[in-house]
Every structure is written in C-alpha cells, then in structure tokens.
C-alpha cells in the first residue's frame, strides 16, 4: 500500500479519520448519500503539533475572515468551493516543528518559480474537485445507473493517479511525493486491475463491420466481419461463463443481471484501492493550502503589492519588514499603504505612538498575520521580511464592552493582563493595543511600566500602542527597560499621518485634528445644537411633517 501523499508535513502521515472516510466512500460507491464526505473528513483532520493557541489571537486578527476572503483559489476564472474550516485550522495552529514550515516553504517556492508545475497542480485540484462532486453527489440527483457512476469515478481516479505519476516527476520539493505515490500505485496489482476493468468497460470487444453504401448515399448493407474479444483481459469472460456468473450471483442472493456482475467486479477493484482513494480526500485539503497561498499572492500582485517567503533569523538579530501591508484592508477593497518596519532586535518591546487613526492598530494586525502566515509556511504580506521564530502569539486588539462583564473597563483590562501573564510563553509575539487606557493616565502609566518591565523577563517580541506620550517619552529618555524601542506614526507637512512608521515617540496624538476631521469642534457642535433647536422645539410635542 502506498503511503498517503501528505504534502503538508515533512513526515507523511494520515491526518484524516481513515476508517470513517473509508465507510463514507464505500457508501458513496454503494449509491447512498455521502454529502459532505470531504468536508467532514478534512474538518476533523489532525494538524501538526503546535504551541499556539487560537483563542489568544484568532479573533483579534480576524483570522476567519482572512481565510475566507484572502485565501481564494481561482482556476480558469472559476472559484471552486474550498474547505475554509480545514484551512482555518491549519493557519490557527502553526506547526511547532520548523522542518514542517521549511517543507511547505520549499513547495511554495517551487510553485512560485515553476508556472507549469503550478498549472499541473491546479489541474490536479480541478480533478479532485470533480472526484468530490461524483462521490458526494451534492445536488442529491438520482443516480439512474449506479455502475456507470462507479465507472466514471474509477475513470477519473485512474486519470488522477496517472497525473500524479507523470506531472510531478521533475519536482524538487515535497511535490515529488505526488509522483512517488502515483508511480508506486501504478506499479501495484490493484491499479493493473483498475486499468483492466476500465479497458474492459471501454472496449470489451472489437467488431469489424463492412457497410455498403448505395449510389444515392444510403446505407444498404451491413456485414459483421469479425468480433474479437479482449481475451487477455482478466475481466473478459466467455458468454456462457457470464451467464453462469449471473446465475451464481442469483443463487448467492444477488440480482440476476449484468449490472450485478459488473458491480461485483467494480467492488473487487475498489476494495484494492480504497486507501489510495481515501488519500485523495486528504490531498484535496493539502492542495487548497498551497493554491490558496498562491491565490493570496496573485491578489496582492494585482493590487501592486508584493508578498514573500520571509527569512527566519535568531531573535537577537534585527527585524526588517519591507512593504508590509494589511491584508484585511486589501480584502475590504481598500488599497493598503505598504510600510517598512524595523527594529534592532527581534526579541524586544516596541512602543508605538502616534495620532488616532494613524494606522497603529492596523500595523499590529499586519504584524500578527505576518508572524502567523510565516510560521505556517505561507507567504507573508510584505515585499521582504526578516523575522524571528515566535513560540506563540498573544494579541489584545479589540476590547468590546460586553453585557455580562463583571468588571469595569479598568478591571477588564487588568484581567487581560493577568491572563496574558498566565499564558505567555518565553519568546512569544505580543500585540497590545492601548494598554491601560481605561484609567487615569498617572495610575495607568504605573501599571503600564510594571507590565512592560515584568514582561521583558520573557524576552517577547512585543508591540504595544499607547497614547501615554509623556510616559513613553520618559521611558525613552530613561532607558531603564532593556531591549525597548520606540516607533511613531510619521506625519506629513500638514501633520497628517502617512501610515509609515519612524523611530521615536510622537509628541501629540492630534486628537484635535481627528475631532475636526470627524466634526467634533466647538463651532461644529454649536451649529448642530442650533439646528436641533430649530427643527425640534423643546415643547409642543411631536411635529407633524
């Protein structure tokens, strides 16, 4: 039996529930409803061991929306239905083993640089989608000829195996596994039986005929010259044996028909290739990982942006992110402004200051997605990137007020901090948006300093935004906390944010500008009050139109 063609992991493994999928496929062949066969198998598939906990970052990074809207496959102008939940699970749990990441990066690198190989992979995926359609019968259409459906599945399955064996033989990356798998199956006895059965289906016998044509063009003669059966084919039986076989099946409790004979033969062939057929389910999920990554790259390029496979360096080295953009903005139809981010040391705490709506939170999202995608072995949303390996990701970007929350805003924030320290491993990426903004600045600054000081002991790669500008300036001047850097939102000559980030601490949050931009100046509010007084008198009840 050939090893499952796992192209997501350095060590090939079976990740889907094999026996459950076998049962589902058997039922599909038997004509029973098997809708969702692929989806159920992939959603419950195991993923590589991971130290990352999705609950600590997935919602803050809008990971589900990112998977749904940024990771898309387009083949020939069509967008096949993908299994988003499987992809979400893959992305939310980056493998702990760097070898797995490297394995995936090599495949993506090869696909990026070998267009024909990518085309073959897309064709393979299209065939797998057709196989999924035949097996699942998503339209629940009545199958009038069950044997015909089974043979169609087997025809497609054989072409899939042939494609696997031939189209990826020159691959240098893990894609070579596909070729090895296909070749190994092709050399096996069950595959030969499959080929013989399909050959029997296509050409049981050859009939030589002679057709006579009259002077007016009409056919006036038809003579069968010879009938030659494919005698070398193991499925070809003489007529009398075919009759006896039908009779035998009838006695054994089956129906007396040719289709029952064919059904038994198909069953015998399929039973020899069940594991290989189940492998196709897993392979479909694997292909979606790579093709969706390529789709993400295509969308970025179309928006005049660039993605890359980042360079991993030690966390003592400097961080370099060139042309970093936020893919969540891209999927919203906004062309994001790419920016450069750098810091002298990866394992450091970076305080980000700047005006409101200056792009600080978007930067945190971009940094989080970049780290996540990089450690999954995918392209990152940057033209070039040099990043370090993170043992986890903790993000605190959204702080919504909940109906049932037990504490006030400060209390909730303190609980966040407590939880952060409960879970934070050494060397993790930490993204904190406006730490301690729920209380008065003087008391908030004390807690802020405590958190940053204590957290530095874990050598995180921390990015923290704050509007405590004086406090940030003091920390910069004192330099008491080791490995701390400061970046601020760059302003243009009109003191408007350029969405670029430069070293330093911002002098102002430009709240007045933002208030003016949003219509919250004294004159603007006074005008609104006067308008309301004219339209809605203080007494006299409701006014009819």
């Amino acid at each position: 039996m050939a090893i499952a063609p796992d192209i997501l992991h350095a060590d090939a493994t079976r990740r889907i529930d094999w026996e459950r999928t076998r049962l589902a496929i058997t039922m599909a062949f038997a004509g029973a409803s098997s809708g969702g066969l692929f989806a159920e198998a992939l959603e419950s598939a195991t993923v590589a061991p991971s130290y990352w906990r999705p609950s600590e970052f997935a919602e803050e990074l809008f990971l589900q929306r990112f998977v749904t809207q940024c990771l898309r496959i387009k083949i020939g102008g069509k967008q096949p239905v993908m299994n988003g939940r499987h992809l979400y699970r893959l992305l939310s749990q980056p493998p702990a083993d760097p070898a797995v990441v490297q394995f995936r990066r090599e495949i993506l690198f090869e696909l990026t640089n070998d267009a024909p190989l990518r085309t073959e992979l897309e064709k393979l995926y299209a065939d797998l989608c057709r196989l999924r359609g035949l097996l699942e019968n998503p339209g629940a259409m009545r199958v009038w000829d069950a044997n015909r459906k089974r043979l169609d599945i087997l025809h497609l399955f054989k072409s899939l195996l042939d494609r696997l064996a031939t189209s990826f033989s020159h691959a240098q990356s893990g894609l070579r596994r596909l070729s090895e798998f296909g070749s190994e199956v092709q050399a096996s006895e069950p595959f030969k039986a499959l080929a013989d059965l399909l050959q029997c289906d296509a050409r049981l016998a050859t009939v030589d005929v002679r057709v006579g044509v009259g002077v007016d063009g009409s056919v006036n003669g038809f003579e069968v010259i010879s009938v030659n059966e494919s005698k070398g084919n193991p499925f070809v039986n003489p007529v009398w044996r075919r009759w006896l076989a039908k009779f035998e099946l009838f006695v054994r409790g089956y129906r007396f028909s040719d289709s029952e004979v064919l059904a038994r033969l198909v069953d015998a062939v399929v039973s020899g290739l069940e594991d290989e057929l189940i492998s196709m389910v897993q392979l479909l999920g694997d292909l979606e990982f790579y093709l969706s990554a390529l789709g993400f790259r295509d969308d970025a390029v179309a928006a005049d942006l660039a993605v890359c496979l980042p360079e991993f360096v030690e966390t003592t080295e400097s961080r370099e992110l060139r042309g970093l953009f936020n893919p969540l903005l891209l999927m919203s139809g906004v062309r994001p402004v790419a920016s450069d981010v750098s810091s002298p040391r990866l394992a450091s705490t970076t305080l980000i200051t700047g005006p409101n709506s200056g792009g600080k939170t978007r930067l945190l999202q971009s940094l989080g997605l970049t780290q996540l995608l990089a450690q999954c072995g995918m392209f990152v949303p940057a033209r070039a990137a040099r990043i370090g390996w993170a043992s986890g990701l903790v993000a605190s970007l959204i702080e919504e007020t909940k109906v049932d929350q037990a504490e006030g805003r400060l209390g909730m924030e303190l609980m966040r901090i407590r939880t952060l320290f409960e879970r934070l491993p050494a060397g993790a990426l930490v993204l904190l948006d406006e730490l301690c903004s729920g209380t008065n600045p003087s008391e908030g600054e004390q807690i802020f300093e405590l958190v940053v000081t204590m957290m530095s002991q874990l050598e995180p790669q921390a990015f923290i935004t704050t509007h405590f500008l004086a406090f940030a300036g003091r920390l910069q001047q004192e330099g008491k906390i080791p490995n701390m850097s400061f970046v601020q939102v760059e302003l243009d000559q009109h003191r408007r944010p350029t969405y670029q980030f430069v070293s330093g601490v911002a002098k102002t949050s430009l709240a007045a500008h933002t208030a003016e931009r949003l219509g919250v100046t004294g004159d603007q509010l006074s005008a609104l009050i006067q308008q309301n007084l004219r339209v809605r008198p203080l007494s006299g009840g409701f006014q009819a139109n």
Partner: protein
Amino acid sequence: MPSFLVTKQMSPALAARVMASVTGRRAKTPGKRRRPLTAALRLAALVLMVATVGTVIHIRHRSARQLRETRESLLHAMRAEVSSLSAADRDTLRRVEAAISAHSAPGYAGDWIADDLQSESRLAEALQLPTIYVRGPQDRMAHPGSLAQIALDSRKDAFVLCLLDPPEARTEKALKAKARAATVRGKLMQVTANIEPLAPLFQALPLLNGDWERRAMVAEPIETLSRLRKMLEAAPVEAAVRAAKAHQLLVVMDEAGDAKGPTELDGERPHSMRVILVDLSNDKVRLRFRHDVDPSWISPNTRAEYASGIDSCGVAMDLRSAVLGRETILASDRQPAKH
C-alpha cells in the same frame, strides 16, 4: 466454492477480492451485504430445479431408449418374418386379385381342364400343391373393393375337404359326414393343410411391405410403436407367408341363381357354382368348371343345417369325376339319404 467471475488471467489477489465481493465477506459494505436466507431459498430452488430438470432429462432419455429398443425389436421381428418372402411372394396378392377379377365376369367362358390334370395321380399331385382358397358370391367378386371382405368371410369348407378327400359314396349320409367335419373343423380337415385361406394375405401382407417398415421407423411415441407391435402380433403373419408362397389359386364363385326358389337356413339355394384353379406362377387357368346345385334332394332334417356343405361336397366330387372323365351326377339324380 469458486466463482464464475474469477478467471484464469486474474492475479491471486484480485481473485481473492472478487471472491470476497461475491461471497459478501467484504465487511462494511452497507446495502450490498449478502442475505443468507434469500441465498438459502434460492439455492434450494436451484437444487429443486436441477433435480426436476435432471429427472425430466432422465425420463426422456429412458423413454427414448425404450422407444429405440421397442422399434428395433419390432423391426427385427418384422424383418424376420419378411426375410423369407421373395419379390414374387410379395406380389401374390396382386396376382390373386387380378385372377379373380378376370374370372368373375357374369359371362362364363366354359369348362376347361388342363391336360396335366386329367389323371388320378396328376390331379392328386396338383391338389397337394400349396394353394390359396377363396369362395364367395360371383357378383361381389366382380367388384375389386369387395374382395377383402369376401376373403375375411371365406374359410376352408366342405368343397375343399371333399376335393382333396372325397367321400366313398355320393350319398347324403356320406356327404353330410364331410359337411359336418368341415363345419366343426375336425381332424378330417388336416388333409387340407396345404390349402390357405385368402384372408391372411389381406390381413398381414400390408404389414410386411416397405411402407409399414418406414412407418415403424418414424413412429413415436412409444404408445404408437406398441400399437404397431400389437398389430403385428395379432396379424396371421405365418399364414400370410404361407399364402404368399402358394403355387395356385382355387376360387369358388357362387352365382346368384334363381331368386324365386326356396333358400335354406344356411343360405343354400339352387344356383350355379364356378370353380377356377389358376397357376399363380404364370397366371394360367388350369381348371374351369361350372356346375348347378339344388338342395331340394336333401332330406328336410339335414337340409336345414348342412345343405350348403352337402352341395359343396357334391360339386367337388363332380369336379373330380369331370376331371377324371367320369360321368357327373346332376342334382336331380341324387338320392336322399335313408334315415
């Protein structure tokens, strides 16, 4: 049990999978699991069907064999009977019919006796030859279609007996003794062993010709063959063979006579009798003799029962006398017996 779905070209692994699929041993195949009860019922039905077909075939085979054996036995028996018949023998009946037809015309051609009969010894020698005998009304003998029925009604009578073994005296008593002997078929009739009635020829000769053999060869079912065998067994084949080999034909024709005269209880009445002896080897007449008979001279007690026999015996004696050149006795000259 191997399956007919498995072929020699299949690899052992594939053959095993086909067997597993056929026998239902392949697990986890919902909807395709074999149904043991259905299979058992169908197997029982198959066994019953095979047994029925086998029985039918056996019965048919046995019937065919019986039919063949019966036919061969029948043909063997028939051929054994036929083997002694020559082509001329098979033609005897036709020649008999032709001779009777030639001499049954109303007009009588006149008495005639061949020279080689006109002595005691020659006559005796001629009468010892195998001879077919038939007697009947002259007017009916003229119709060819009636001859078969006439033959069936005809038997060796007092005429034949008296011709071969005449009474010592031409008295009523002596004639009556011969007539009674002919009637009861007593030991005296043994002298007529060389005389064969015509009837067996009609009854059995058709069974011995080629048509009947061909019919036997194609006859079926066995019941038809059995009927043919019973016909063959019932037919007087031996008598027919003897008749077919006869050298001469002896015919007695009773002319109509005077319808106004009395008729005795045995049918006898005044009339003329014709006696014709034909050599069947060359169809030539050796003897033609016509003589009147009148039972009125017979005593009343005897006449009612033996008039015909007495007259027949008397004609035979007269014939012998005529052949040997002696004076014949007319009916009116005869004397009744004294009781």
